[in-house]
């Protein structure tokens, strides 16, 4: 399968790889996918409580090149956005940006799910 230049770039130079402390009240963690399905994404955000702006984002992904690129791109996009803005990122935007072929659309769906899961986790921490 031929990959787009952008996928190759994210694969070779993934942005924001790493981990944030899970227990930090300002960190939201999203873990989506399953090893049996061949894709697991962990996306973490650090959010400013006052402004609800995502100040930092980190990811780790088990999956194909497109999955790695989708999550790498997702961390780039959420950084600097408010939670409300980040929730508006659609998988189709990722598909477009990375020129993903139809068989790889599920990678973009997973990245969108990861963003949402991280935000949900953060919000849960702040309900209490």
């Amino acid at each position, binding site marked *: 399968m031929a990959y787009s230049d952008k996928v190759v770039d994210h694969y070779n130079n993934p942005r924001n790889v790493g981990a944030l402390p899970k227990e930090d009240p300002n960190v939201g963690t999203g873990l989506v996918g399953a090893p049996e399905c061949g894709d697991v994404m*962990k996306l973490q955000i650090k959010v400013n409580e006052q402004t609800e702006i995502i100040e930092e984002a980190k990811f780790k992904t088990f999956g194909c090149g497109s999955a790695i690129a989708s999550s790498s791109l997702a961390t780039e996009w959420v950084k600097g956005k408010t939670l409300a803005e980040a929730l508006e990122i659609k998988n189709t935007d990722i598909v477009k940006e990375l020129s993903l072929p139809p068989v790889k659309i599920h990678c973009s769906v997973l990245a969108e799910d990861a963003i949402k899961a991280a935000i949900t986790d953060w919000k849960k921490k702040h309900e209490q």
Partner: protein
Amino acid sequence: MVKLPIYMDNHATTPLDPRVLDAMMPFFKDQFGNAASRNHKFGWEAEQAVEAARKQIAGLIGADPREIVITSGATESDNLALKGVAGMYREKGDHIITAVTEHKAILDTCKHLEKEGVRVTFLPVASNGLIDLDDLKKAITDKTILISIMHANNEVGVLQDIREIGRIARERGVLFHTDATQSIGKVPFNVNELNVDIASMSAHKMYGPKGVGALYVRRRNPRVLLTPIIDGGGHERGMRSGTLNVPGIVGFGKAAEIAAQELPQESARTFALRERLRTTMERELDELYINGDMQNRLPGNLNMSFAFVEGESLLMGINDIAVSSGSACTSASLEPSYVLKALGVGEDLAHTSIRFGIGRFNTEEEVDYVANRVIETVRRLRELSPLYEMFKEGIDLKTVHWATEN
């Protein structure tokens, strides 16, 4: 410096040996005759060349040249063996025994035959990839006409005990077919020593050309008869009509001759390279799992799971090396390898599997390059892998509740 890209996918196909090409060339040029033309020099030359090649092919497997039926390749050979026996022995019975790890050319042919009323038993395999001979014995009924069990598996390289399978078949008066596409030319294969009645083979898996293969069909003790699946001019003793692919057959013959001469040294050499690859990677990386039995295995095969690193992403990182993966993402069906599944390899590990196929033209230098590239890429991708991180934290991934809403 090694020359890139490196080809290490010799189970998919093998490069043409230059000596084979040299043997073929005249038959693309001046000696273009039809081997079935009986009344001029062009035909005679072609026929002579085909008969010489048939002798070389028979010689490699200890057969009589008259027992070699030329086909277009192993898929056709498998089809002819199964459909040919099912058609010819319909009066005697309607039951075939095979195994779940067979090549699709066998499995899909069996499914086709099931639609025509043939009953098929698909034997399971143990975690080492081998069938249980007791299962086989129990599966035989008085309606069983054929046992078809492959010699070497194309994914995990595991060698079934076909000598014993053949013995059991003979004892019970059942014909025995083996798909020996991956093994002939790589390990010793003698139809009499191994009690084989019918065997499929292919030229392009042994440094010959694509588009030509053969079916060994025993003539004596027992004499095997097959209903043809291609009708026409009655070529190949009526079992396979169609004008013979003379250059291809000549190349197949030459490839068989070379394989027969060089097999002992070559299998020792590919085995040493395989072990060098395996031990280098095992020294540098943790959490590696070998798929399939290590004792009964093709010398050049290594099928390994690199836990926590998805196969397609690994292939992408070593894109100057040609190998293949059992990952779903690399298959058209988006399903992980059915062979690994049959061995009981979990889907999580199936997604991380890579098949290395070392062949005649691979060098030690290439093996070292491949090992180093794999080691460095696996390390890099594990840094990226949330699963490796969790594993290192001591989390049992089997107990994690995975959110799979998509």
